């Protein structure tokens, strides 16, 4: 063990611990900007500089390893003076002029720069901000870049390359001209971006945000002639209360329904309903393909970030994807047929909105093969902004129930929101579909948790043991695809583009207080608590899904089900 003192407090740490980590161990907060848990060390912002052994040169705490006998001062007069000046220089490159006013910033309520200013104790701003006059990148259906706000902390670059295994961003030029850009400056919509939005979560300045659909949804709600219905994704319910001050993982399903009803939606439904339906369709497909030994392993198709990833990087494996649409698109397809017909709503007047933890869902809804089944997609953040703007605090509301027709779901649908959940839900029903019997133990623990790659073997009958895999975060998806290419045998593999699955989606609230792992763990616990508290926990038990098949679709995999609920994919490569 290494012994040192930080601000006169003795600390013992393992070899290889950085001064930043050592300081956090004794609850000394050193401000950072370019540092982010789970990313490589960049050491670019220099805000974490500390004094070591009264040496003249200050050392960046994030990039300096603790050594025996070090005497570290994290807030000496010299350190504080330098830190303030550095922050002034950084802010001068972050345009906070009238045009990009803080008040309209995507991070108006969660500004990391403001937190850092507070941590440093900023009391002066001597430099005028530089306006670089760079154009916004509006090329993507999912994500907007506002480069004038960028302070080149490189977090988006590292997040995309290291966590997602892609690397669509790079620095071009140098010195004060340094600009974060995409390949050939083509814009995010024209390169191999998967629209996952993880860069938004990493950006401390609001230079990246989702393409807003809020105004269009307000217009639809205000228009008396429109019949506006909404679906809410599984992972939204454990995060929507966060912008209102609640802990991550707080379950606010009923409160969300109540808030949406107050906003004026004409029908409030649950993407969970179509998640159960997805299991029926995808489960049936898996059972069929496994028994015919056809294009194995079957790869899940719920995560639109993953879908775009495989279209770009493994187009030769598109035939392995399940043809089932994602729950969002199944909902859209049914809303514009089953719902419209059942309720007698004119398609001209029907507006379908979804609330998703996801930015890639915006792109998915614009795919030509999806028609216009889903009109607008709001992220969890946008939904929270709208609810706030309607004068509602979600935490104060009494819980209400979803509307019946497409609002009933089982616990299997709730766990779609977390890594391993689609797999677990599918296994619960696949067992039933093959054997006609119910699984004895429906908690399938090996596929749960935040481990990047998970594997399990589930015995079905004497002849068949299903081998399944789970990967979340696209760098893990890459590893999984390499394992498959190297001959590792699977029947069925779940992929989710975002770390932790949808609970860690690019559209989820951004927490300034907790680390991303803490946030994910709490949301995950919330999801599993909903599942275990439900009476019905297997998709095939959903009475409204059964009714849908009886009255409308026939049986899983029927011609009509195929027409409405299945899709095809586009080989993209790297053009």
């Amino acid at each position, binding site marked *: 063990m290494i012994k040192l003192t930080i601000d006169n407090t003795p600390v013992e740490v393992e070899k290889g611990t950085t001064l930043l980590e050592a300081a956090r161990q004794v609850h000394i907060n050193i401000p950072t900007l370019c540092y982010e848990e789970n990313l490589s060390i960049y050491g670019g912002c220099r805000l974490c500089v500390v004094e070591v052994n009264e040496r003249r040169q200050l050392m960046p705490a994030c990039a300096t390893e603790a050594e025996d006998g070090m005497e570290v001062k994290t807030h000496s007069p010299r350190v504080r003076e330098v830190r303030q000046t550095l922050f002034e220089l950084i802010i001068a490159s972050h345009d906070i002029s009238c045009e990009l006013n803080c008040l309209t910033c995507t991070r108006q309520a969660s500004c990391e720069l403001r937190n850092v200013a507070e941590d440093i104790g900023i009391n002066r701003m001597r430099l005028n901000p530089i306006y670089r006059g760079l154009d916004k990148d509006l090329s993507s259906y999912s994500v907007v870049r506002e480069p004038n706000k960028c302070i080149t902390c490189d977090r988006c670059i590292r997040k995309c390359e290291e966590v997602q295994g892609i690397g669509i961003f790079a620095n071009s030029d140098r010195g004060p001209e340094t600009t974060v*850009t995409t390949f050939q400056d083509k814009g995010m919509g024209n390169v191999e971006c998967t629209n996952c939005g993880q860069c938004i979560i990493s950006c401390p300045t609001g230079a990246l945000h989702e393409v807003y659909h809020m105004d269009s949804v307000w217009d639809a709600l205000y228009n008396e002639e429109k019949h506006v219905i909404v679906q809410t994704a599984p992972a939204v319910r454990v995060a929507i209360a966060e912008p209102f001050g609640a802990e991550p993982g707080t379950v606010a399903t009923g409160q969300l329904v109540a808030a949406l009803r107050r906003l004026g939606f004409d029908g409030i439904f649950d993407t969970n309903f179509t998640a159960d339906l997805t299991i029926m369709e995808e489960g049936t497909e898996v059972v069929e393909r496994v028994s015919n030994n056809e294009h194995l392993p079957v790869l899940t198709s719920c995560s639109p970030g993953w879908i775009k990833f495989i279209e770009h990087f493994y187009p030769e494996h598109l035939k392995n994807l399940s043809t089932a649409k994602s729950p969002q698109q199944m909902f859209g397809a049914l809303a514009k047929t089953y719902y419209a017909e059942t309720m007698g709503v004119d398609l001209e007047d029907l507006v379908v909105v979804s609330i998703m933890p996801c930015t890639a869902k915006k792109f998915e809804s614009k795919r030509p093969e999806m028609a216009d089944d889903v009109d607008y997609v709001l992220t969890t953040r946008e939904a929270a902004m709208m609810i706030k703007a309607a004068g509602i605090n979600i935490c104060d509301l009494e819980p209400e129930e979803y509307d019946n027709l497409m609002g009933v779901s089982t616990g299997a649908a709730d766990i779609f929101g977390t890594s391993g959940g689609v797999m677990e839900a599918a296994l619960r029903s696949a067992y039933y579909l093959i054997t006609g019997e119910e699984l004895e133990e429906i908690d399938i623990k090996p596929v749960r948790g935040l481990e990047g790659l998970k594997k399990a073997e589930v015995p079905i009958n004497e002849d068949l043991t299903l081998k399944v895999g789970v990967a979340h975060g696209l760098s893990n998806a890459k590893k999984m695809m390499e394992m498959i290419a190297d001959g590792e045998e699977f029947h069925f593999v779940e992929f989710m583009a975002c770390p932790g699955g949808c609970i860690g989606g690019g559209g989820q609230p951004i927490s300034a207080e907790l680390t991303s792992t803490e946030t994910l763990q709490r949301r995950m616990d919330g999801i599993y608590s909903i599942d275990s508290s439900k009476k019905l926990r297997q998709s095939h038990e959903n009475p409204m899904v059964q009714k849908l098949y009886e009255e409308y679709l026939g049986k899983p995999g029927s011609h009509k089900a195929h027409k409405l609920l299945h899709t095809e994919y586009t080989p993209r490569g790297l053009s």
Partner: protein
Amino acid sequence: MLELENEIFLEMVHNIQETYGYVPEREINQLAEKFDQPRAKIYGAIKFYSMFYTEPTGKYVIRICDSLSCHLNDSHDLLLAVENFLGLKNGETSPDQLFTLEVVECLGHCGEGPVMMVNDKMYTELSKGRALEILKECQ
């Protein structure tokens, strides 16, 4: 896997630029594959160096130094004259693909400013008139 820091990378980019006059997109894609790096990263590495181009350049690349020493010898005046003559601003290429104009840092002839380069050829102690004559000869 090759490292971008490896000097072989720069040598390859130099060769590509010598062949095409710039570094075309398909070559960046190939470098990305060779070095097993995201293509944006290769693009960024190339863009770090001001002497590499990722867009086609004119047949004649005109570089005018505006570092301190040349600046004191009125390089700005020279630049204005060349800008007016070519109808181009810094970094632009003429529609007929004949000229590209670049304002650059020190070209290593500080005692002989102002200086201008046309492709690989250096011209020193330039007057505005002489500079325009050189450009006319290119046309």
